């Protein structure tokens, strides 16, 4: 319905004037958004993930098995799930409510394999990843064919019956769940065990974050960006929607399962609570409040919210109110969450520098452009730059 503007600007150099009037004499001071640094090389593989893993390990070692350490380790488990959700919900805008189900696959898978089949922690982790991948492929092959709203509704129903299946299955320990899951890395005493398991969890989190960041920054990430905004646009530039939707669903689900395995291993027990809608609600809050497009944001968000949930302060009693209001405020004010708000605040400050940055980059790129065009006689005038 909206008709394109009938505006009159005679040159193509420079950014858009932000003023409403057509042809207004807008100078470079009106720059709406700053020039972003453009990557000319692919980022160092998994560098960010490595950083996260190292920081996580250091934090856990410093805490040395305190109660806070246990909370943070549990938070790390949730963070692995939410990192997957950044790719799925935030970056690719695939709204699915199935993460708690796959978290359950991970947790129950670990529990069953370790207690009933005597798998070691490593074996069971690998087996759980394979199991979750197969399950996600089967479920995803069906649900990712559905259009957006149907996918969301179908996956909203999924936790209902999976929860019922788990609670009625005596093999899965019905309501009491499975007890006696071994920690990832048993140490000499409780404290050492907790720290060591925490370190493994932090490494897994770093790995997850590294994978997700790497995918988002790759060419595939560019494709996801295009199709998330506009599926028809995605198709028209050669993106296979079905393949990408399924891959996103599977990767998100597998990371959820890994997170579930971490939770099982840290807590030593798996209960049907992990499958309940409450656990899905918690995950969604972590993602939406912290910022559904920011990997760093959701990692911190998961750990902070997990801390708030378990701490016995005023906050934990009134958690629902605080979370709910935070969610509503964020949806209304800044749909990209706290991370988005921080980004915007920083961006605003950066904009003051934008004008000078602009001139600089225009001059630099303009020169480059002219060089490139020199061979062809430079028809269209990249010389408009600067």
């Amino acid at each position: 319905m909206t008709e394109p503007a009938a505006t009159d600007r005679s040159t193509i150099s420079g950014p858009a004037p932000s003023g409403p009037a057509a042809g207004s004499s807008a100078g470079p001071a009106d720059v709406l958004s700053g020039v972003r640094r453009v990557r000319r090389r692919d980022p160092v593989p998994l560098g960010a993930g490595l950083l996260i893993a190292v920081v996580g390990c250091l934090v856990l070692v410093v805490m040395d098995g305190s109660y806070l350490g246990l909370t943070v380790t549990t938070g790390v488990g949730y963070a692995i799930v939410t990192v997957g959700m950044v790719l799925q919900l935030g970056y690719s805008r695939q709204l699915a409510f199935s993460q708690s189900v796959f978290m359950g696959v991970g947790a129950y898978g670990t529990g069953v394999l370790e207690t009933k089949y005597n798998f070691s922690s490593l074996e069971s982790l690998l087996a759980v990843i394979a199991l979750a991948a197969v399950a996600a492929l089967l479920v995803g092959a069906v649900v990712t064919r559905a259009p957006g709203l149907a996918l969301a509704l179908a996956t909203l129903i999924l936790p209902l019956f999976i929860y019922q299946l788990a609670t009625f299955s005596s093999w899965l320990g019905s309501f009491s769940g499975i007890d006696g899951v071994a920690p990832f890395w048993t140490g000499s005493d409780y404290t050492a065990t907790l720290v060591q398991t925490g370190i493994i969890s932090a490494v897994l989190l770093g790995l997850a974050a590294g994978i997700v960041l790497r995918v988002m920054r790759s060419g595939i990430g560019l494709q996801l960006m295009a199709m998330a905004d506009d599926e028809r646009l995605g198709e028209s530039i050669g993106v296979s929607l079905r393949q990408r939707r399924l891959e996103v669903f599977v990767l998100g689900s597998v990371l959820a399962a890994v997170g579930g395995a971490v939770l099982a291993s840290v807590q030593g027990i798996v209960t049907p609570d992990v499958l309940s809608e409450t656990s899905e609600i918690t995950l969604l809050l972590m993602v939406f409040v912290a910022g559904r497009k920011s990997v760093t944001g959701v990692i911190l968000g998961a750990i902070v919210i997990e801390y708030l949930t378990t701490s016995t302060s005023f906050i934990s009693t009134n958690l629902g109110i605080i979370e709910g209001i935070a969610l509503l405020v964020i949806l209304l004010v800044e749909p990209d969450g706290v991370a988005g708000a921080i980004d915007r605040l920083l961006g605003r400050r950066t904009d003051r520098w934008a004008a000078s940055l602009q001139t600089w980059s225009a001059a630099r790129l303009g020169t480059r452009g002219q060089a490139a065009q020199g061979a062809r006689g430079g028809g269209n005038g990249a010389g408009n730059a600067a």
Partner: protein
Amino acid sequence: MSEFLNLLAAGLTSGAIYGIFGACLAVWFRVCNVLNLAVGDFAMFGAIGSAWLVQTAGLPFIVGIIVVLAGVGLTAWLFDWVVLHTAFDRGAGAHGIVGVFFYTFGLSLVLEGVARAMFGTDVYGAPSIWSGPALHILDFHVQRAGVLVIGLAIVSGLILWAYLRFTVSGRAASACGESVLGSRIVGIDSAKFRRRIFIMTAVLAALFGIVESPITGYTYMSGPTLSLIGVVAAGFAAFRRPGRAVAAGLVIGVAEAMLGGYVSTSYNDVLLYAILFAIIIFRPEVLGLGPEPA
């Protein structure tokens, strides 16, 4: 025979719960294409609020009911004014599929948190409106509250159906959901319909909570489960037909009870959810969930 009748009675009672929440969700979804995931929390508030006012604050039962219903209505109005108005009339904030789920989801969390802060974590049941021993009609054993529950569900389903089917206002309400621009050009105030029906369904849900809670008992966490049950019933009624949602709810309830009684109690819901899951995935267009227009 008596077993069958008792299963039928139990099924109808639980089916009424499905039906009424389905109807509340469906009628509002029809008007503004947003799912009310807080509808169960309104019911919880009605039940626990009235129980608390009567048992702890010592108000007369009728006064308690009126105060709670007024409070729920006011809350709904406030939420519409602060959140929905900002989001849908002024165009601020998140939209699209996120808006379909998450605004009311936020409300649900707030209501849950408020209920916990005000009433604690105990199980509450509002006093029975119609107390007395269970009724025996032939071999048919049914609790009095159950009769009220079934009656309320059927009556409200019929009223909503008739409203949408026969009144000009009902047509206008449907038109809002069909085409916002199309409704605005003939002078229909779509925001007004959204607000009124939201408040109306909130109060209805609260009333239902008061009537039903003597049977099951509510805690502050009961809301989301009831809302999801409503989504299931509404799903079987193409998400937009409140009358059919009540009917679907009753059928679901009876089918579940029969399955539980004659086959197995373990997996009676699983089958139901699996069927709905299959419908949503394989025939989304039947439910009006086709691909969004390009």
